[in-house]
């Protein structure tokens, strides 16, 4: 490791010993690997889901499809059918194909959540860093407003706003983004403050560097990694939040499918033992659990510091 060549030293036999063992690369354990595989799987579904779906998400399947050969029942039930060769994951309350709707819905659910998380980061990191580097007054004002927003139950906040402004996808994304920006703000601010008092930022300040340079060259690169890990966690919360909203009926327009409202609309099937409400719920769970497993694995390597921040 150490390769100093000190011509001036009396002997070169005793090299300066390294301070610490070289940093270990992040190596994922098997739950982490499974997590990555599942996340990649869903990413592919987002890309090609609609093309491989056997039916369209809006298709209400014809009764003829379900006629059992030899039976004289002309109008067999099409709703809440168990998985079969016609409908691989069963049919929903209207007689639509659950599999197709999950494949179509992946794009809606994951897409909305992802964009909302990105938005939350854009807002939260910008304001959080502004708060960390800005004046005491700016920090105080931003923090208090943030505290106030945090104190409002997020579902309630969304509910009031959607009731006020109508249920559209852009609004859903905007609201979710704002709601989750509050916690991103706290993390970005504390990370920013941590870096802000470090010697290398002082060094840049003594050099006379401008604020913009300090933020982009000194602060951002140093908080990027913890923020990236937190992004995963936040993404999970956002998926759950968006699902809860659509479960409460504040979501996308029919016949578009999203996983949360699929659970909601098929809930009556539960008492008949239908798998229709379980399948989308499982889709949500596989994705969120996987992301969490990856994050857990990574943060286990960074000494659980992340867990400490999860509180915010």
């Amino acid at each position, binding site marked *: 490791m150490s390769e100093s060549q000190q011509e001036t030293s009396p002997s070169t036999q005793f090299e300066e010993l390294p301070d610490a063992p070289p940093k270990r690369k992040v190596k994922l354990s098997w739950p982490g690997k499974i997590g990555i595989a599942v996340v990649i799987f869903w990413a592919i579904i987002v890309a090609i889901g609609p093309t491989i779906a056997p039916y369209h998400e*809006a298709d209400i399947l014809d009764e003829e499809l379900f006629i059992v050969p030899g039976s004289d029942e002309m109008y067999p039930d099409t*709703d809440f059918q168990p998985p079969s060769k016609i409908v691989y994951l069963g049919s929903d309350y*209207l*007689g639509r194909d659950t599999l197709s709707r999950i494949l179509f819905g992946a794009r809606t659910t994951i897409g909305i959540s992802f964009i909302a998380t990105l938005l939350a980061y854009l807002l939260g990191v910008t304001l959080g860093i502004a708060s960390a580097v800005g004046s005491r007054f700016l920090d105080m004002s931003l923090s208090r407003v943030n505290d106030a927003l945090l104190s409002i139950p997020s579902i309630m906040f969304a509910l009031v706003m959607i009731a006020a402004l*109508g249920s559209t996808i852009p609004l859903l994304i905007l609201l979710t983004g704002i709601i989750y920006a509050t916690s991103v703000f706290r993390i970005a601010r504390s990370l920013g403050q941590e870096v802000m008092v470090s010697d290398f930022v002082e060094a840049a300040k003594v050099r006379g560097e401008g604020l913009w340079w300090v933020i982009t060259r000194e602060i951002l690169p140093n908080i990027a990694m913890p923020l990236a890990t937190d992004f995963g966690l936040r993404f999970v919360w956002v998926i759950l939040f968006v699902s809860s909203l659509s479960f409460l009926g504040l979501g996308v327009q029919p016949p578009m499918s999203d996983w949360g409202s699929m659970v909601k609309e098929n809930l*009556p099937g539960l008492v*008949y033992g239908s798998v229709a409400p379980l399948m989308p719920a499982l889709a949500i769970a596989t994705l969120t659990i996987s992301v969490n497993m990856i994050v857990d694995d990574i943060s286990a390597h960074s000494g659980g510091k992340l867990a400490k921040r999860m509180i915010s």
Partner: protein
Amino acid sequence: MKEVKTFQQMYRDGHVNRREFLAAMGALGITATTAGSLLGSASALAASPTRGGSVIFASNLHGPDDTLDPILGTSTIDYTRANTMYNGLIQVWNDMSLHGELAEEWSVNDDATEYTFKIRKGVSFHDGHPLEAHDVIWSMNRHIADGSPSSIKSFFANVIEWKEVDKYTVKLTLSSPDADMPVKLTQPQAKIVRKNAMDWWKAGTGPYVTEEFQAGVKSTHSRNNNYWRDTGQWLDGIEITAITDPNARLNALLAGSVDMITSISAKQIKKIESSGQSVLSVPSGLYGGICCLKNTAPGDNDDLVQGLRLIQDRERVVRKFLKGHGTVGNDHPINVAYGADHCHELPQIPYDPDKAKYHLNKSGYSEVELYVAPVSGAIEDTCLLMQANLKKIGFNLKLKKVPTDGYWGAVWMKEPLNVVTWNMRPTANAMMSIQFGPNGNWNDTFWNSDRMGVLLKDSLAETDPAKRHEMHCEMQKLVSTESGIIIPYHTNILDAHNPQIQGFSNCPLGQFGGNGWAEHIWKTG
């Protein structure tokens, strides 16, 4: 069927059990639903009413705006409470005939502008005060006062005054003829309360007295021992609440937490019956439909409306979404539940995608937007089916899902294409004139027809049944071809209850026999 009667008898006498009875009915080719109701009437045969016990009733909607003030009532739970606590001047029977309630009798002048009501003597309010004319006048004046919040204020827009003739006689003067005034007085909002009532709890004359009331939570009621008539009042106590979530409501019944639940969906019937609970399915004129505003695009395009009529797979809607608990609609409100006024001669509009495609192509539209709120049990499903079927013929129907709250103010009668649900009215004429009359308050497709006005007026005066039927047929034909309403289905009024509770009427004007079940039902065992 003689066999059926025999089996009912056997069931009543305990020779066959419930399962055997249903099996026997199946063998006779009787559908499960019918068998269920036959079983119900068999039980009714079996048991004579018994006094005692209490029931918990769970409606479908409640909230902080629940009220005991009759004039503010807007929901089933308010109507139910009103019928439990109060009486009106006039009541409607199961056969839609009108009878005096707190009014012993009434008379009307020739041009229907003056009514005289004889108030029943010996009736007292829950707080002991006797009922007199000034109570009636005070109650009715609340609807016509300036800024009155009454939800049926418009019904009484033509009232000049309510006047006390003597202690037990009231005279009503109208500014314009109104033969339907007695029907309006049967509304739950038009209940009679004690003059200057401040606290509604003791302000009624009805069969049950309110013990406790928490808006959005529940109310409890106990028998009024000084009730002025003998209608049974079998129950000791009644608890009225609501469970908003349909699944939770059903689960509550299945778990035995409540005894009666309103507004079940057709899809829940199978589960309810297989769990040993009873379903009350009353055929009704209640319908769900689609309004195309005739005064604006795209509803003003007849081909578009025609195309949308032809794309309705009505049979499938009734079969699949209503599970048979309803009737196929023919794009006018008057179905078989209206009896003689229903026009059976009118041909049924078919499901014809090809013709629909032809009309839609001709209309020049390839895409329209329809506002949907879950205002009626199967309306959302119907629209989704319509959307899927339109997609097959290359037409894009965009659905804009909006919440029910605020729907009637913000969407209905405003957006060019919207959905609607209408309760059954006591008469075909009342129904038609509210929605399609020339001066109808709620002409929700903005369709105006002079001919319709003439027919409405004449049919009221016509005494010959055949001619009257003919007039009604013409009206129904007009509505189903020219107006902007599309009515794919009429749905039965569906409620479910614990089989121990009996004595429900089949009045199709509201949940559980027109919301007025409190004084009739009883609980066995």
